[in-house]
Structure formats: C-alpha cells, structure tokens
C-alpha cells in the first residue's frame, strides 16, 4: 500500500466514436501532466488485442501499478481490462475507467465542451485509482447438496435431476404427500394423457431415489447462510403415525370414529375423509396421517373408550406421543417450487359460487371428471334440489385472471386450455350435453394447443365471446346473464352447471418463503426472477432458484422445462464445489465502529451482525460483515455516522478525491 502510485492512462478513440467528438490528443497531453501519471497514451481501440497489449507491456516495462482506461462504459469493458491487468501480473482491481463514450462523446456535440469534460472524467479516475486497493475474490466450499421446497411436478423433477447428477437433495413438502397440483388433475391438455399415469412414477422415483431425502408433511423453518453454505432448519410435523411401521393398509381410516366427516383437501372438498387419512390412493409416501385439528383424541384427549385406530392398526403404528421434529442440514443451493393457489371465486360474488352448489371451479371439475375422484369419474352434481347429470353446462373463462377488479392483471396461461379439455371431457362423458364456453379471448399458444382448440370446437362446443355479468337461480336452473360481444346481443343462458375457469394466484403463504429466502415479488405478486429474460430461474439471492408456478402461471411442460433449468442452475455451485464471493464488499473498521447497529438494520441481505470484541479490556459490540452475503451496495456506509463501514473500491477516501477532481476549477 505504501508503494508510490505509478499510473498509466489509456485513452481510446473507439474508432471515431470517441475521437470524432473528443480531442483525444489533448486529453492525453492533459493526463500526462496529472500527478503520478507515468505514461498517457491514446489508441484506436483499447479493447482490441493490440490495445490491451499496450497496457500489458507498459505494466511490465514501466512498472505501472495503476491503470486508467478512458473509453466506453465500465459496464461494457471493465471485465476486459481487469483481465488484462491480471494477465500482466497486476491486481485487477487497480483499474479505474473513465466513461468518455456513452457519457461524453455520444451525448455531446460540442467538441470543446466534450473534450473539457473528458479531461475532468480522466482526472477523477486518476484521483480515484491512486487510492484503490488490491482485492482478491475469494472462493468458499459449496455444500454438495440442495434443498427443494415443494414437491409438485416442478420440485419432483428438479429433485430428480439434481439427484441423478449425483448430489444429495432434501425435498421438503408441506402436505402429507408429494404430487402437488398435478396429482389432482385428470387428463392433461392437449394430449389427453392421464395426469396420474405420468406423474405417479415420478413421485415414486422421488421417494425411492437414494440421493433424495423426502421430508413430507414438513415445513422449512429457518434459512441462514448464503450460496454454497445455506443452513436450513425443517420442521417435520408429527403425523402421529410411525411411518416406519405403517403399511398403508387403511384399516385405521375405516375404523376412525370420524370417518367421512371432513372435506378431503385433495378432492377440493368434494370427497370426504376422516381424522386419520391418506390424502389420495396413490399418495407418496403411502403413510397415514392423523389430522391434529380434527382427531378427537388429540383435541379432547379422549376418543370413546379408546382410539379405534390404535386397535385397528395391526402394525402398531399409531403413536399419539409423537412430536414435531426439527431437522437441520446444510445445502449449497435452494430451489423454490412452491406452486400456486387457485383463485377463490368467492371474490367474484356475481358468479354465486358461494351459494350455488352447481357453480364449481375448474379444479373441482378436475376431481369430478377423474376416475379416482369422489364420483368415480361420473359427472353428477347437486343443483340445490337434487343430484343430476347435467345436460346444459357452461364454462366461464378468465375468472380471477386479466381482471383488475380483483388485482390480477395477468393471464393465468392455463385456463383456456384446461377449459377446452374439460369441455371435451364433458362431451366425452355426456355426449348429449350442450356445452358453451364464455370467453374474452382464447389463447392457444403452445405446442398442439390451437389444434386442440379447433378439435374441441368441431366437437360441437360453442364458444361465446362475452364476460358474464351475473349468475342467478331460476327454478332448478342457473341463468347466466351475458352479452355476446361479437353480435352485441344480450343473452340469458339457462344451464345445469357452471364451471369457473379460475386463474392461478401466488400461494397465500408466499410471504413466509419471501422472508425466509429474501426473495422479491413482481407486481403480479409471484416471486421475482433475477432477470425476466436472461436469468428467469435465478433470484436476487444468489444460490436460490425458482421453478414452476411460484414464479408465474405456467402449464406442465413449461413447469418441467423450468424445473430442469433451475436444477441445472442449482447444480453449478454444487458441481463446482466452490462459490466465488464478490471482492467489492463492505469492511468494518472495528477500531472506530461504535456498535450502534444502524448498518445491521440497513443491510437488505442480513450480511452484517454485531459481535462482541475486546477493545483494550472492554467488551464492546462492533459490526462485522459476512463477506459471502454482502453485495457491496454500500447503503450501510452512507448510514454509518462514524463512517466505520466502507465498501471496498467505493470508500469515502476513494470517492472524495473524485469529487474534488470533478469540482476543481470551473
């Protein structure tokens, strides 16, 4: 640090991009006279090989220890010139760039003014570069394991890919079984292959993969650390069933005093379950769970003369003494695949969902048409009076999507196609049914989608362009009030059943994940990716990746594609075994820090903590930066009253001389 600065200043012509407006010779002459400048040169293209060679040779021959390049934006070529310095044996952070192209020659016409400004910018760079410090970007070991949150199709796919690549995966699922939303679906558009048939094998694979530790009925409680070294705590909720003993035979459920008393979540409430239950027949793990909020024994301490499940279970798996368990482990990467909620149409009261049993959601329709569903795949519905097989069926699209009145401006991307699919299934199962679809626009953009939409229409399903304003009951029929906007005709359509094509929404518990992982939300409230185009699976938190509908609505193929992409991204730190830590991080002068903790409050990355140190016999608190978490934004620094915390390369002592140089004589 005490070595006298020996500067080289290189002014780029950028062909004529700079030289046409800035007198590069004059700037060179000016730079040569600045303090500590050993050599100032100009050259047609500094970024070219010969241009870089000029710098490298001067570093070697003239013993330069600092370099200023006056050329384009540092956002463009800073890495280029840093590399050049490094190749010449100089610390790459001994570089400062003066942006005399984007912020000078390209935006000013007056040659004199542009030249004068270029001189100032060079002077400021010279002033700063003299005080720059050598930095080394460090690497730390990455834990060769990943956490996948959510075991829907996205989470399962990502977990399988990472596990297949040879890394340990902790797959955490909140509900008792993996499978997620896809498991609830009947057939999938546009191919009409059975959802369960393609998903179930993957569920089994995920559970049995030697590299995957499945933590079902578990929730992530705490995430600390940083890319490569996350420390995770997961709460394994008590099932009150010893999974090592449970054979999944189901004898317990049959005997449960409350059997068939509660709506089954998996069937969207259309089916019923007891207090001890398996969410659905293909559940993985195929282990029963006691609902602690329902079970008589758990809520009241007493269940008849004794819990019948205990007697029924020949394996002796029922264990009311079971407690939640906290599991801790370390991972190098975290993949978020927490999925979505469907829009609750109670928020569109005009559709009468809350009042009419024959107004149902698309997801409920999935369970209704599913062979494994509560009706065994038969479409029967209660119209308030009696159970019927509906003959007049209407679908309403865009419920809770593209609708500012409910705060969802976005398109949910799947409703057009699942409606078409369900309309087709209705026609399939009730060939004489009259089926109408009320729509705003039909978006059939995916592979095979438009073809499927055409097919459905050929099957006699009528598409009416119009957004229904009201649904009310007349007799045992539902009346849809709507205007056919293509013919400008007001219509009243009497039907037996209405299916609302509800959209996809961020999960109600997304906030918890945001806080755990320091994620951001986009305006649609889905998790925000690092860049909408170029980093669609990364987040602002390094080492945390997104897959599936938690990032935005998408269909199964897109979800799987994104899951595979996210898995590939998450594999980068795992496969390398190392993660690089930014060198331009904040540093605390512990001797002057007063331990007020302002920086701790300010830091958006929780990268600063107060630690107790011994200052001449007194135990005092001072701030300390976790370099792996710090992003070098410097907000802490401007909020520090004793200026004790400083971002490297942007320290006060490096910026104030820049200010002096730019102020200077007018």
């Amino acid at each position: 640090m005490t070595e006298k600065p020996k500067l080289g200043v290189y002014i780029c012509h950028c062909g004529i991009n700079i030289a046409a407006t800035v007198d590069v010779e004059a700037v060179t002459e000016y730079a040569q006279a600045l303090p500590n400048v050993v050599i100032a040169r100009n050259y047609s293209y500094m970024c070219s090989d010969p241009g870089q060679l000029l710098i490298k040779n001067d570093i070697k021959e003239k013993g330069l220890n600092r370099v200023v390049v006056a050329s384009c934006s540092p956002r463009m070529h800073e890495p280029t010139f840093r590399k050049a310095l490094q190749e010449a044996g100089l610390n790459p952070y001994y570089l400062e760039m003066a942006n005399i192209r984007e912020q000078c020659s390209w935006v000013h016409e007056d040659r004199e003014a542009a030249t004068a400004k270029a001189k100032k910018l060079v002077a400021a760079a010279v002033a700063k570069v003299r005080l720059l410090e050598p930095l080394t970007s460090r690497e730390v070991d990455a834990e060769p394991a990943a956490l996948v949150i959510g075991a829907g199709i996205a989470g399962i796919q990502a977990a399988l890919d990472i596990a297949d690549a040879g890394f340990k995966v902790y797959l955490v699922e909140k509900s008792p079984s993996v499978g997620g939303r896809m498991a609830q679906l009947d057939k999938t558009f546009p191919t009409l292959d059975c959802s369960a048939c393609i998903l179930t094998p993957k569920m089994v694979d995920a559970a049995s993969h030697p590299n995957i530790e499945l933590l079902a009925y578990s929730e992530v409680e705490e995430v600390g650390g940083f890319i490569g070294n996350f420390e995770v705590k997961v709460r394994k909720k008590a099932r009150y069933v010893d999974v090592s003993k449970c054979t999944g035979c189901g004898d317990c459920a049959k005997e449960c005093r409350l059997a068939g008393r509660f709506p089954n979540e998996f069937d969207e409430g259309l089916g019923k379950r007891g207090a001890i239950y398996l969410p659905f027949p293909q559940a993985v793990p195929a282990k029963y769970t006691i609902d602690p909020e329902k079970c008589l024994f758990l809520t009241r301490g007493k269940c008849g003369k004794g819990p019948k499940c205990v007697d029924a279970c020949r394996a002796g798996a029922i264990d009311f003494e079971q407690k939640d368990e906290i599991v801790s482990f370390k991972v190098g990467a975290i993949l978020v695949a927490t999925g979505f909620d469907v829009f609750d149409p109670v928020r569109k009261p005009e559709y009468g969902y809350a009042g009419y049993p024959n107004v149902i959601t698309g997801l409920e329709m999935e369970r209704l048409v599913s062979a494994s569903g509560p009706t065994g795949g038969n479409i029967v519905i209660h119209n308030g009076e009696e159970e019927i097989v509906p003959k007049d069926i209407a679908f309403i699209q865009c419920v809770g999507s593209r609708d500012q009145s409910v705060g969802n401006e976005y398109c949910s991307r799947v409703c057009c196609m699942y409606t078409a699919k369900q309309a087709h299934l209705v026609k399939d199962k009730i060939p004489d049914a009259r089926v109408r679809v009320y729509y705003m626009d039909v978006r059939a953009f995916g592979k095979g989608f438009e073809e499927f939409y055409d097919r459905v229409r050929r099957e006699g399903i009528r598409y009416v362009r119009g957004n229904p304003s009201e649904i009310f009951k007349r007799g045992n029929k539902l009346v849809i009030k709507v205007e056919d906007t293509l013919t400008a005709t007001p219509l009243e359509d009497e039907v037996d059943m209405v299916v609302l094509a509800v959209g996809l929404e961020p999960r109600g518990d997304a906030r918890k994940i945001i806080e755990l992982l320091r994620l951001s939300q986009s305006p649609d409230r889905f998790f925000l990716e690092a860049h909408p185009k170029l980093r669609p699976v990364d987040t602002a938190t390094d080492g945390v990746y997104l897959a599936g509908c938690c990032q935005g609505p998408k269909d199964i193929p897109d979800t799987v594609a994104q899951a595979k992409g996210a898995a590939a991204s998450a594999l980068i730190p795992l496969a390398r075994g190392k993660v690089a830590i930014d060198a331009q991080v904040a540093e605390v002068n512990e001797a002057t820090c007063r331990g007020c903790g302002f920086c701790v409050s300010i830091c958006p990355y929780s990268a600063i903590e107060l630690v107790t140190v011994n200052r001449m016999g007194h135990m005092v608190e001072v701030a300390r930066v976790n370099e792996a978490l710090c992003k070098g934004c410097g907000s802490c620094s401007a909020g520090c009253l004793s200026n004790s915390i400083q971002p490297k390369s942007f320290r006060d002592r490096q910026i104030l001389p820049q200010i002096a140089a730019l102020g200077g004589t007018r």
Partner: protein
Amino acid sequence: MSEQFEPNIVAFLCNWCSYAGADLAGTSRVQYPANIKIIRVMCSGRVNPLFVVNALQQGADGVLISGCHPGDCHYMEGNFYARRRLKLLKELLEFIGVDPRRFNMSWVSASEGHKWKEVVEKAVEDARAAGPFDQFRRRQIGW
C-alpha cells in the same frame, strides 16, 4: 458579458439503473449538456449526503443524485434509504439558504435514456439559474 454561465454539476448515479440509463442515452445518441459529470456508485444508498456538501464545497454549482425507481433497487432497499437521507439533507440545505436549484434527485431506470436527458437538462438549467456557487467554495474562502 452575454456569455451564459456554464454550471459545473457533479452527479452520483447508481450502477444498475441510472448509470445504465445514462449509458443507454449514450447508445441512443441522445444529446444533453456537457455540464454534468458522473460519479458511479453501486447504489444510490451509497451516497452519503455529506458527499453533496463536499461537492458544493469543492466547486460544484449543482449536485444530482439518481437511483432506481422505488421497488426496482438492485439491492432491494438502497434507494429507500437514499430517499430518506437526501430529503433531510435537501431540507437542511434549503434552510441555510442554499438555492434549492443546486440539488436535484431523480429516479431513472436503465431503460429511461430519454428521461435521463430531461433530468440533466433540468439540473443544468436549475444550476445555471442559481448562478456560480463561489460563496461556499473551500479554496475561494480559505486560501
């Protein structure tokens, strides 16, 4: 005498939005006055308000600070801190009689090359109208 006063303006721009926006103005060949000289910082939250005082003391006739729009901060929150701190500084400067036209702050995103030009033009016009700020200059007064 009719030659108009060319103010010297020091600007602090965040790397991710405003500096990128100024770069975009360049690539779009948007023209604006050369009075503005930019210091790049990683985040507007890095701008210690005392930098503004220092710039005015060291020969700036005006200071401009620009960051990401609220909610767009690359570091999530830095611009919110900048907003609070710089509002206080602005109030203080006005209270001691520094012409408010010497201080401007803006939100300019990486895609707002044209807004950058407008902001610069306003800052330059403002500082020009406020005139040379020699009353506070370190070397003018002390030396």
